[in-house]
């Protein structure tokens, strides 16, 4: 499978996977590749390593797109833009956007409960990512958008987050809670107001009447946002289901990351979302099994020792032999581990391993090198 051709026909790439597997680097490398291939690209990222962010000129969580200077890479004919997401400021923006009027907006933003929820509401950061994504895709300014999703505990939380807010607001139970006197139901007044009454008493016992009133107030304001959330949710889901959207599962050869990757593949499959492929980062390669450092390096080491004595040479060679043995063990363990995700992901698009580079990926050149390792002509098809 030719991955360059794959990228050329894709307009939105969503990178998913657990934290610490190089997802941000992979997203940036995919974006850069798009730019090298002449497209105008936006990478939405969460928390890039400082050195990478600095060398790309990304300095703050501005919530605005910034164009990356590609002059160090003359072969890049397109444009690369990046945006760092800041969850806190945008959640307030979302509220502002979906509020029917300023009064409701201000009441919610100043609500004590909201302030706590905005911080702890499960998935708020994920929610923000999908929000921004929607805005950018629909601005029509970019040929290719790459989304680096926040590391999440539970699989596709970020996909579900808009839905969860909708569900939360949609629950009939909140209707009962908010309108215990609503009598215009088919079942008549007594049942519903009766339920509301009991509910209120019990909740009052557990949480205190004052909190309950605060909560009720908050919910009735929040409920006015329902239509806004619902529409956005539907639009984002439609975006994820488009033919030119591709999900890429990123993992590293560690036990937990491989498990998460398999889980992601299952979830994507279950939701019939387009599985682009699996990228395994940070693979250690080690082929030789003899662990004979003396044989492999003895001559050049002595030649280059110069002022260093024979004892140093011997000790270093012995050390390299041991290090090589350990690296080989690691490489074999990694191989067994990635084999699991590979078997598991059958039918899930391409499979490509990207070896750990000798140097840290912290500038355009090394990022481009990652891209060269990733975008091969003959990637395995799962």
């Amino acid at each position, binding site marked *: 499978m030719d991955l360059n051709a794959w990228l050329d026909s894709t307009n939105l790439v969503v990178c998913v996977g657990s934290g610490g597997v190089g997802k941000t680097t992979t997203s940036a490398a995919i974006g850069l590749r798009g730019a090298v291939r002449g497209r105008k690209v936006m990478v939405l990222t969460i928390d890039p390593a400082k050195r990478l962010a600095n060398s790309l000129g990304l300095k703050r969580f501005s919530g605005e797109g910034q164009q990356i200077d590609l002059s160090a890479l003359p072969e890049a004919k397109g444009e690369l833009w990046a945006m760092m997401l800041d969850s806190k400021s945008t959640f307030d923006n979302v509220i502002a956007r979906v509020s029917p009027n300023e009064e409701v907006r201000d009441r919610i933003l100043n609500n*004590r409960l909201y302030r706590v929820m905005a911080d702890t509401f499960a998935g708020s950061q994920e929610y923000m990512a999908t929000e921004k994504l929607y805005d950018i895709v629909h601005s029509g300014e970019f040929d290719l958008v790459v989304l680096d999703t926040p590391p999440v505990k539970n699989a596709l939380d970020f996909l579900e987050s808009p839905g969860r807010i909708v569900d939360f607001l949609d629950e009939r*139970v909140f209707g009962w809670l908010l309108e215990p006197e609503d009598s215009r139901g088919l079942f008549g007044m007594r049942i519903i107001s009766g339920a509301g009454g009991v509910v209120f008493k019990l909740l009052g016992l557990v949480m205190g009447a004052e909190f309950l009133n605060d909560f009720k107030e908050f919910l009735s304001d929040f409920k006015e946002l329902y239509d806004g959330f619902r529409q956005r949710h539907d639009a984002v889901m439609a975006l994820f289901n488009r033919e030119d959207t591709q999900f890429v599962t990123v993992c590293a050869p560690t036990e937990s990351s491989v498990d998460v990757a398999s889980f992601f593949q299952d979830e994507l499959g279950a939701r019939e979302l387009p599985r682009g492929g699996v990228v395994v980062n940070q693979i250690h390669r080690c082929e*030789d099994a003899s662990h004979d450092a003396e044989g492999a390096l003895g001559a050049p080491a002595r030649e*280059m*020792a110069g002022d260093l004595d024979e004892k140093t040479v011997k000790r270093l060679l012995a050390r*390299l032999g041991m290090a090589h043995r350990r*690296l080989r063990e690691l490489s074999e363990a990694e191989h067994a581990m990635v084999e699991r995700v590979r078997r598991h992901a059958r039918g899930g698009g391409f499979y490509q391993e990207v070896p750990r580079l000798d140097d840290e990926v912290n500038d355009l050149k090394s990022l481009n090198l990652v891209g060269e390792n990733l975008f091969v002509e003959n990637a395995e098809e799962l």
Partner: protein
Amino acid sequence: MSVRELLDGRLVMVTGKGGTGKTTYAAALAVVGAAQGQRTVFCEIDTQRPSAAAIFGEPPPFEPVAITDKLHVCNIHWDGALVAYLTRMLPLRRLVKAVLENQVVQRVLDAAPGTREVAFLSRIGQLVEQYDLVVVDMPASGHAFSMLDILRSALDLFQSGPVRKRAIELKELFGSEAARLAFVAIPEEMVVNETIETHDRMQKADMFGGNPTCFLNRATLPSLSDDERTLLKRLWENEAIDGIGREYVRAGLWEDRLEQATAESSERLEGVFGEPPVMVPPAAAGGVPRQAVAGVAVHLARQVGIARRDLPWI
């Protein structure tokens, strides 16, 4: 604080970035606590796949079960925590039953901000009343912060009523000398960043009873001499060395980098925690979960003067 001082507490909460081994360390600390003769319980919170199953051989229920005489394990899940919490707060069994049977009430309790966290922390507090030592495998760094921070916001959110009363009690317990925090890190830049960031946020929010302990997992200290490193560098820079020869050079460089990373991480963590982290070599924490816990437990037990043969369960 040292491992000995850490285990002098009544409550030890272990956190860290995902993938650092915090569950392994929490379980190992519980094993060592039990070996010291403390009646100890190891708990996990609200996890779909309790690691205790892979470590101790069976999925732990909500009510602690005995692994050995002194060592118990449990899983604090939401359903159990809610029942325990309601039983504690409501005067009549009949009311507890009424709350539990009402779907609407359950949904609201589940969705209302803070209720879940207060129920979990309340259960931990209850276990502290029942055991000499409670070791909790807390959620990963940022989530652990949010969970503990609820005690602060609960006082703001709940102006009166039973939640407020319980939150005040719990805030006292979690902020007391008896409550201790331990962080588990590995020698990687991003992990150390997150550890320091969480430490600072917690310190600012006044969440520490005593000084927290930091464990540096997979630690390997620099072992090459300057001369050896010079020669390694020359070999690395010689482009004529390729193929298998280069593989050996790369292996050496890989280990040297890991060692340098340990030294750098240790120094940065010391700067924040005020003392060097407790270092544990990779060999101790390797293998399947049960082996890893045993390995770390043996290593930590040595620091409190307990020999391997005196560890229960191992």
